[in-house]
């Protein structure tokens, strides 16, 4: 990333200090009440809603010049969304280092995935959230969902899981599967695959969630219990394509299906490009 492209006339990390303070205040509250949605004054950002305005504001509020930022989109570091957000911060936050390596990053902004490499203490995960309300498909009134959260009345969510089993024979959604945080609040894990849900449980990293259009923040502090909802006789099962990665051979990572031709040809590859690349490099070095 060339330093010559630094944007001039902007505060560090784009947002003004008053806005960052407002977001940090909301984040502190979110960390204090794990899984609870905290309203915040979401700002207009130089990218459209749905592209990560919430995540980008959270990242801007927590990042410092000594941080190392990694941005992933569907697990990949090299997709348009990931590249532009990384370049954006490189331009507006002088001194900030960016990386594609999970292990080197201190702040990881993500859309739809949690990296395969286990997170460690001191790292911050920032999730882009399109819809923070886990109950929104079941109860359209915000006033009512707020009341349900306040009363811990989550029978409704269980009804949805019941419907899933009745219709599809198994619990759950393949992504955005609802979780209980700290045994108290029902939370949307953002549209990560259900495969990644167990990684949130007792994670050593701080996990922050930003929903820009919906003006909500929430958080899971390090070492917090995160349980995926299920039934006793239909336990939650993290789903994964039953194949090995064509590039690195991994059998324990989350896979993307890639169509290779118009005659039914397809391969499976790791969705986490950093994880896959590191494994390929290791394999080459061993040969």
């Amino acid at each position, binding site marked *: 990333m060339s330093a010559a492209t630094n944007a001039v006339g902007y505060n560090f990390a784009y947002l003004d200090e008053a806005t960052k303070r407002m977001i940090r205040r909301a984040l502190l509250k979110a960390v204090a009440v794990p899984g609870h949605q905290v309203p915040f004054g979401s700002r207009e950002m130089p990218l459209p809603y749905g592209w990560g305005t919430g995540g980008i504001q959270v990242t801007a509020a927590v990042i410092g010049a000594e941080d190392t930022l990694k941005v992933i989109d569907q697990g990949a570091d090299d997709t348009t969304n990931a590249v532009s957000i990384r370049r954006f911060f490189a331009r507006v936050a002088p001194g900030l280092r960016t990386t594609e390596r999970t292990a080197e990053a201190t702040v990881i902004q993500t859309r739809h995935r949690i990296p395969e490499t286990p997170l460690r203490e001191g790292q911050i995960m920032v999730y882009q959230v399109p819809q923070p309300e886990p109950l929104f498909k079941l109860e359209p009134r915000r006033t009512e969902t707020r*009341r349900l959260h306040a*009363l811990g*009345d989550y*029978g*409704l969510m*269980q*009804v949805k899981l*019941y*419907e899933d*089993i*009745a*219709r599809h024979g198994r619990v759950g959604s393949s992504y955005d599967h609802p979780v209980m945080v700290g045994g108290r609040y029902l939370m949307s894990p953002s549209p990560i695959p259900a495969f990644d849900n167990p990684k949130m449980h007792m994670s050593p990293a701080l996990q922050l969630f930003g929903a820009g259009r919906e003006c909500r923040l929430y958080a899971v502090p390090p070492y917090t219990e995160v349980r995926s909802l299920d*039934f*006793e*006789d*239909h336990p939650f099962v993290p789903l994964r394509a039953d194949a090995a990665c064509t590039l690195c051979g991994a059998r324990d990572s989350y896979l993307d299906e890639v169509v290779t031709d118009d005659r039914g040809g397809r391969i499976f590859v790791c969705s986490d490009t950093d994880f896959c690349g590191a494994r390929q490099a290791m394999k080459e070095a061993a040969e």
Partner: protein
Amino acid sequence: MTDDPILSARGLSLNFGAVRALDDVSLDLWPGEVLAIVGESGSGKSTLLRVLAGEVRPEAGQVLYRDPAGAARDVHAMGEPARRRLARTEWGFVHQDARDGLRMAVSAGGNVGERLMAVGARHYGAIREEAASWLERVEIPRARIDDAPRLFSGGMRQRLQIARTLVTRPRLVFMDEPTGGLDVSVQARLLDMIRALVADLGIAVILVTHDIAAARLLAHRLVVMRHGRAVEEGLTDRVLDDPRHPYTQLLVSSVLAA
């Protein structure tokens, strides 16, 4: 029946602007008893039901509910979490329009199972079995357990709503015109079913209706409402066969004999 009423209201008053919706209404309901509140439209009977169920706060007066342990609890002073817990365990509410009481996009099994799950049931097989047996009790074929209520007829929806309400075996059920808007033949079957279930489970019911015939069939006792006042109260047969208040006489004489 025991000596203590399960629900007792004293001096309930409520005004909507200049309209007196409730004017110093008192009543008692004993366990296992079916009490009908009759009166014409606008007489305040639905408002009374909502005040008794804790959904609307009266301007004056008190509603006391006696819980299984025998303690009297003030319905309007207990706070929302406690009242909601009550509403999904020991109480039930059957609405006139089944769409208010059901989730129309959720399958019949899910609708019946919701109250079970709300009180902590987490075993899918057990919930489904309980839902299926309740569907059979209200004469809905087991095979329709995965159909959504919007595919059901009006009478089936109402029966489904009753199954959904009774699945947690409440002690007290509020019914707001449960037979309203149904064909007479469907009404008759529904009334028959409600009577059998209520007698079977020993539930106390407060039934709001403008249908005197339904009241005679179901209720042990009757309260006649007019302009927000309870003008007459007594055993159903006594009130209907020997009405004392002029308004009750008018009401009873207005019923068409088939």
